[in-house]
Each structure stands twice: as C-alpha cells, then as structure tokens.
C-alpha cells in the first residue's frame, strides 16, 4: 500500500485540503503537525478512543482493590498484631495508602494506555523516510493520503499540488 504525503505551510491550508480529500473520498487521511490542530476531528473524523478514560478508571479501581487488599490481608490475616487493643481491621488507617494506590494505578493506566492507543514506541515509521518530514515537529503541516480504492495514485499527487501543497512526496507504506 502506498500513497502521497504533502507539506502545507499553514494549518488552515492543510485542513481545507483534508476536507476536500474527505469529500472526494480519496482514501485514508492523516495530518501531522507541530501541535494539535483545532477542528481536525471534523475534517478527519473523530478517532479518539473512548476506552482510554475507562482504562484509567479501571486502573484506579484495581489500585484501590490491591492497595486496600494488601493492607487488610497483611494486618488481619497474615500477621495479626494487637497494638493497644485497637481493631485489626483499622479502616481509617488504611485510607492514605489506598488513596495513593488509586492514583498510582490510574496514572500508570493512563501512561500505558496512551502508548498502547498511539501504537508507540515505534522508532521507525514509513513517514520518517519522507525527505523534509522533520519539519512536521517544527512549522509544517503534512497531510498523508493513502487511497483505499483502485484510483490511480498519480492523480492524487497532482490534486495535492492543486490544493496548495508546497511539496508533495510519495509515501511507501501506511502512515
């Protein structure tokens, strides 16, 4: 599978081109930019994973169960120690560590969830072979199009130039 990738000098230019390509059903589109561009969901389709926040919630719940569970098990079951006649299951004393475990579990889930959903780490990617692509983290907006149908890909390169791209390069492989 191969397509085209084109550099635009402004976010608006790249977004306008993305909308045109979307309306023409040109194929799969992705935008690479130095910062998140406003209104891109509307042009590219909203791909934000709904499961990521739920994973974070699950991480927090798991942290709570483990954090409280370890304290309960060690203090009540495994090593009961009478300290001044206080109850073995002293719930208020377990609150601080349980809270910290919730935050730790949820934060680890958010971190791992980000990398899993972004499919990182992946040190080499096809786009890194495109000459001049370094500018995507500096000041250029790169729009990649990979045709899904059997349209001749060469036309797409010409279309990108027509849409105002300042530079168009072939892209080998999925963006």
């Amino acid at each position, binding site marked *: 599978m191969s397509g085209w990738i084109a550099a635009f000098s402004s976010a608006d230019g790249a977004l306008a081109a993305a909308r045109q390509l979307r309306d023409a059903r040109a194929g799969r589109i992705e935008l690479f930019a130095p910062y998140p561009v406003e209104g891109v969901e509307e042009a590219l389709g909203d791909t934000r994973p709904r499961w990521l926040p739920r994973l974070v919630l699950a991480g927090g719940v798991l942290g709570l169960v483990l954090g409280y569970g370890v304290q309960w098990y060690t203090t009540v079951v495994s090593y009961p120690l009478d300290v001044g006649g206080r109850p073995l299951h002293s719930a208020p004393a377990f609150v601080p560590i349980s809270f910290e475990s919730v935050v730790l579990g949820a934060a680890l889930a958010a971190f791992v969830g980000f990398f899993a959903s972004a499919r990182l780490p992946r040190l080499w990617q096809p786009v890194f072979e495109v000459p001049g692509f370094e500018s995507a983290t*500096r000041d250029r907006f790169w729009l990649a199009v990979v045709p899904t149908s059997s349209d001749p890909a060469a036309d797409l390169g010409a279309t990108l130039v027509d849409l105002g791209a300042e530079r168009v390069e072939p892209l080998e492989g999925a963006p």
Partner: protein
Amino acid sequence: MAEATAIGRPAAPVLEGRPGDAELTDALLSPIFQPGPRVARGWLLLVGLAVLATGVFGVAIGATLTLGIGAWGNDIPVAWAFAIVNFVWWIGIGHAGTFISAFLLLLQQSWRSSINRLAEAMTLFAVVQAGLFPILHLGRPWFFYYLVPYPATTGVWPQFRSALPWDAAAIFTYLTVSFLFWYLGLLPDLASARDRAPTRLRQRLYGVFALGWNGSMRHWHRHRIAYGLLAGLATPLVISVHSIVSLDFAIASLPGWHSTIFPPYFVVGALYSGFAMVITLLVPVRRAFGLERVVTARHLDALAKLTLAMGLLITYAYVCELFTAWYTGDLYERYVAFVSRPLGGFAGAYWLMLACNVLAPHLLWLRRVRTRGLPLLGVAVLIQVGMWTERFVIVVTSLSRDFLPSSWGSYAPTWVDWSLLGGSIGFFGLLFLLFLRVVPFVPIAELKELRETRPEGLEATA
C-alpha cells in the same frame, strides 16, 4: 529591555512579539544545541561547583553509612532533627511543580505553559533529595525495602497502622506520577529535538527517547486525553502527599505536633516554599538564556502573587496554631507555643522563621518587587530559609521539650548534618543544570499551540 516596557502596563503578555513557529522552535532548542560560548562557559563553571558540592554530599553519606547515624547530632529525645527537617523541606519544594503543571492546566491558565516543564523538573529533583533522607535516617539504609510489603520468609509485614509506611507510599507514588506526567509532556519536544539535532548521535539519542512520536493527529488526540487525565490525577495527589507527611507529626501525641490543622498547614507551606524555589530557579535561567520574551514579567508577577497568597495563608496557620494552643487550656500546648518556641534555646530560629515567612512576603505587594528579577529572587531565598527554619522549629523544639522535664534535652547538628543539607542542595543543582542542557526546558509545542489557538491569551487580557 522588553521587560522594562512590560512593567508599566497593567498586565504584561504571556509571550512577547509574535515569533514564527520555526523561530520559536530554534530559539527554545538553542540551550541544548547551540547555547553560545558565554552561556556554555558559565554553565560549565556552575556544573563544576555543583559537582564539588555533590562530592561533599557523597562524603557525608559515606560517613553516615560507615559510622552509622551516631555521626549525626540526633539523640534521644531529639531523634528526628536534620534528616526529617531536610526531608520535609525538599518534599515541600517538590510540590509547586506539579501544582503549577496540573492545577493550572485544569484551570486553563495560559501563563503556565512557559514555566511548567522547568517547575516539573524541579519537582522531580527535589523529591529525589527528599527520598534520600528518610532512607539514610533508617540507620541501616540497605534494608529500606522492608517498607515494601513483600512476602518475606520472616512472615513479617510493614505496620500499616503507622504513618511511616503511608509516607513511603505517598512519596513513591508522587515520584512516579510526577515522572510520568513530565515525560508524557516532554514527548513532542523530544521529537522536535530529534528532528533538529545537529549530529547523528544526538538525533539517535533523542529519537530513542521520543519513542517514535510523529506528530500525527492520532498521537496528539491520545496525548491530550492522557495528559489531561494525568493532570486530574496529579492535582489531588499533590494535596495528599504533604497531608500524609504532616500526619507523621499530627498522629503523634507530642505538644506542638498533635494538631488537626497540620495537613492544610503543611500543604500551604509546601506550595509556599515550592513557588519560592521556582522563582529562585526561573529568574537566573531566564536571564542567562535570554528568555525574557517567553518568560515575561507577567510570569514573575503571577508567581509572586501566588507566593504572597501562600504567605498570607501560612500566617493564618501560625496564628491559628497559637490560638488553638491558648484556647485548649492545655498546659503543655501552651508551654510549647508561648514559652519554649519564642523564648527557649531555639528562639533565634523561631523569630527568623517569623521574619522570613510572615514579614518578607509583604514586599510582594509592590509591583516593582514582583516584576524585577533581583528583588524577587531575594524574597524567594528568604522564604526558603524561613521554610527550612519552620520545619526545624516544628521538629526540634517539640521533641526537645515534651511532657516531662526529666526527659527534656537539647540538640546540636554535626558537620555531617550540615554537609548533608548543603550537599543535597548541590546535588539538586547538578541535576537541574544537566536538565537545562539536555531537554528543552520550555515546552515548545505547547507555546506554539498557545500562540496559534489563543492569540488573545497572549495579549494583556490573559
């Protein structure tokens, strides 16, 4: 000179001028790739000094490990002293970074963007210093893993009804979450550094740490979700960590410690010293790297106002402590609050604390002090001295004068105590200096986004 014009206006902008994306990227990457000969020389000189101080730290740690904590001035009844004072001071300093990053992100304060990474790095390095002290204080630090609940052949577990395992959990969580938050925020800028690196080796190094970030909207969207969630998690965490540290004191029955105001009092004190440390680091860094357009008078002004607010809150906490001591009618509470602290052997520390923490911040009512580097730096250093002294007063005066005069005692630090304090400052400085030259310390992508999406946010109304 940009600063001089900004002072006269009601509110200075967050970002001066309208630098282009390319210009901004290059300017913010220049400290790591081409800092200029004067900056590079000055940096090397400071690194040399910090290495010396870190060496002193190493010697003092070596003395502690070989001689035992008998090398310190601690003894019964003052069993805590410098180690715990330093611990609370450093962990307190470590609170401002995450507060600035996470809390101000949730409140959409645009001025946070220029300084959050520096503040977060400060947090990480301060928490590293803080973590060392309780471990050294264990006496046999090589058994520190006893604090972790692992199934040992002895069948013994940590005592979770004691505040000390709470502390260990809080600090470990705080260090981990702060690091994750910092690294996630850094990822796009590491990719920027990768793409602008002048040599192949550096390109590869930054490439490995950027983990393949390509700036696609797929990455940005997920990044934004995860970063926002981490900010939401880090904000209550900041509050919880110093609250838990304060419980080390508050759940003991000692006069001057056993008080319900301790958690909020400690959190405010932590933020107070943390903001002061951010100012202490930011003022010289801004000057040395010529960042007056990115870190403007408005940043200094906002930080100074936050510091002043914390100063007023800490004053309230002091007054409240005195009032409660008097109002309880408890003989021992009254003795600590009105006799042993203000008039006893450590009265000098007590009055120094009041001068630095209660009087000094009032200079921040003056706009001239808030927006000019040097006077602001002076106030910030005074506040840090004051906050260290406050922890000294809390720990040492209470321990040396408990209920029975027969168990009273005194305390004097040894050279090892002083070397550990000074050495930890040196080690902190060393880590911070390395950070300045290794990663982009002003968030590049965030500033570009700020410039692009909220142009009004950059003007006087921000």
